[in-house]
């Protein structure tokens, strides 16, 4: 027997020109669209499943964005309000003391007279108030915390002010913000967890659907392999199937979300109204929808790649 010869490469990889490459992609994409539309009922089921899998985490994301928006609307930073005893005379001193603190950003003083004027303006009971012998409203100071100040700083400041002379009440304005922030964190984490779980679900749905498509086209794959199709050429139609399943799922998710938003718009407006806030559902914009389609397409392609890798590599020809 001759010594084994070292293999040369007399059949080198022939690079297709860009035009041929684009032409092939257009042809494959068109064929994939026809394939899916010819099996519309099955395709709709896949789109619905992928759409539901995308809609839930995407909805939580929107909720989290809206909650973050609410806290920003609130003016962004917590603070304390100090209410003084009637007739207290150290208001200016306390205000100056607060202005000197690094954790305090701004200080607004409302004198008894200003409080009364404001009350008269908003309450519409100016005639009744005129009958009172003395102004019953206390003077107050509102101190807004600096951007870098923590909740601990806020609580320490409130404690200190409570001990001050002439201060009858200290209201810490953090609870509402903190709750919203806490809910926002929970929603974000829930969104991430559900996103991961439902993302895996979307990939599995696409993998199964693409595998079925592969099974229905095994004969074509065998012939293509035999006539010299590269692995990329054999994968290509199924990658398009996956992408179309994913993008279709993204469209369904966007539709489901818009329906959900329409459904919750009124009750949510009422709820926020009770907190004296306007409804502003942030995030559901064209960029978000493009992201949704992109993520759907990406998950679909991932599912298709898994299916193709499992099935095409083990393809027996005859």
């Amino acid at each position, binding site marked *: *027997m*001759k010594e*084994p*010869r*070292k*293999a*040369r*490469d*007399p*059949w*080198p*990889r*022939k690079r*297709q*020109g860009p035009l*041929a*490459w684009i*032409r*092939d992609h257009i042809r494959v994409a068109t064929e994939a669209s026809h394939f899916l539309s010819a099996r519309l009922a099955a395709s709709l089921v896949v789109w619905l499943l992928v759409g539901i899998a995308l809609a839930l985490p995407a909805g939580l994301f929107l909720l989290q964005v809206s909650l973050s928006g609410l806290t920003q609307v609130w003016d962004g930073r917590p603070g304390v309000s100090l209410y003084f005893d009637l007739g207290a005379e150290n208001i200016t001193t306390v205000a100056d003391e607060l202005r000197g603190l690094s954790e305090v950003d701004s200080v607004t003083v409302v004198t008894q007279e200003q409080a009364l004027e404001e009350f008269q303006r908003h309450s519409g009971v100016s005639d009744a108030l005129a009958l009172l012998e003395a102004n019953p409203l206390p003077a107050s100071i509102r101190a807004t915390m600096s951007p870098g100040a923590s909740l601990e700083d806020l609580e320490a400041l409130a404690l200190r002010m409570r001990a001050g002379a002439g201060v009858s009440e200290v209201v810490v304005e953090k609870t509402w913000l903190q709750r919203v922030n806490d809910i926002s964190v929970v929603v974000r984490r829930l969104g991430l967890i559900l996103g991961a779980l439902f993302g895996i679900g979307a990939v599995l749905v696409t993998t199964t659907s693409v595998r079925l498509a592969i099974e229905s086209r095994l*004969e*074509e794959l*065998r*012939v*293509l*392999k*035999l*006539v*010299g*199709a*590269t*692995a990329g*050429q054999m994968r290509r139609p199924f990658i398009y199937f996956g992408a179309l399943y994913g993008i279709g799922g993204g469209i369904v998710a966007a539709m489901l979300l818009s329906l959900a938003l329409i459904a919750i718009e009124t009750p949510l407006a009422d709820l926020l109204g009770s907190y004296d806030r306007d409804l502003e559902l942030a995030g559901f914009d064209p960029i978000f929808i493009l992201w949704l389609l992109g993520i759907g397409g990406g998950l679909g392609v991932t599912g298709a790649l898994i299916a193709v890798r499992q099935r095409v590599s083990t393809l027996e*020809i*005859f």
Partner: protein
Amino acid sequence: MGRIEFHQVSKRFLSGLDALQDISASFDAGSMTFLTGHSGAGKTTFLKLLLCLDRPTGGQILVNDVNVTQIRESRLPFYRQQMGVVFQDHHLLSHRTIFENVSLPLRVTGLRPRDIGRRVRAALSAVGLLKRERFYPNQLSTGEQQRVGIARAVVARPRILLADEPTGNLDPELSADIMNLFLQFNQVGTTVIIASHDRALIDQMGKRIMELSHGQIIKDVS
């Protein structure tokens, strides 16, 4: 181009069955050879190894002096683009027209649509089916389907044409027609290897006959 050499090629399946045992043979470029033998003699395994659809457990296969058993997996498609293959059951795609079926080997090479059309029609013309290009396989007779299979095998102008029982389902008259087609392609320089157990037909062709039995060459008559 198209010279093939088998050097002590063996193929043992995982079951322990020896499909081929120490096969050594050479096929000149432009030659035509019939592989014959009983069912399970090793004919299909011989063709599969040549197409690199399977790897031998021993020996080497040279095509144009290159050991094709060592070609990397990523390069195999470009090797197979130089081969044409015809099967007994055609392997035509029922949902594609005759034109689309025949164009498959050209499509994978990235040829322009205009050139694909020209070459597909030339191949269909060579097998006498030019007027059926818009038909679907199930609208054709068995003999016509086999001609389409041959057109698909030769449309990319392969150096080597392999056929596995190409006349297995055909009556003697159609079988002779199909063999004459192979002969025509051989006459323009294509190396042709046909696996067939139809001894009467093979004998009529007057070409080299290699008989296999239990994975070994028991007769090689030119």
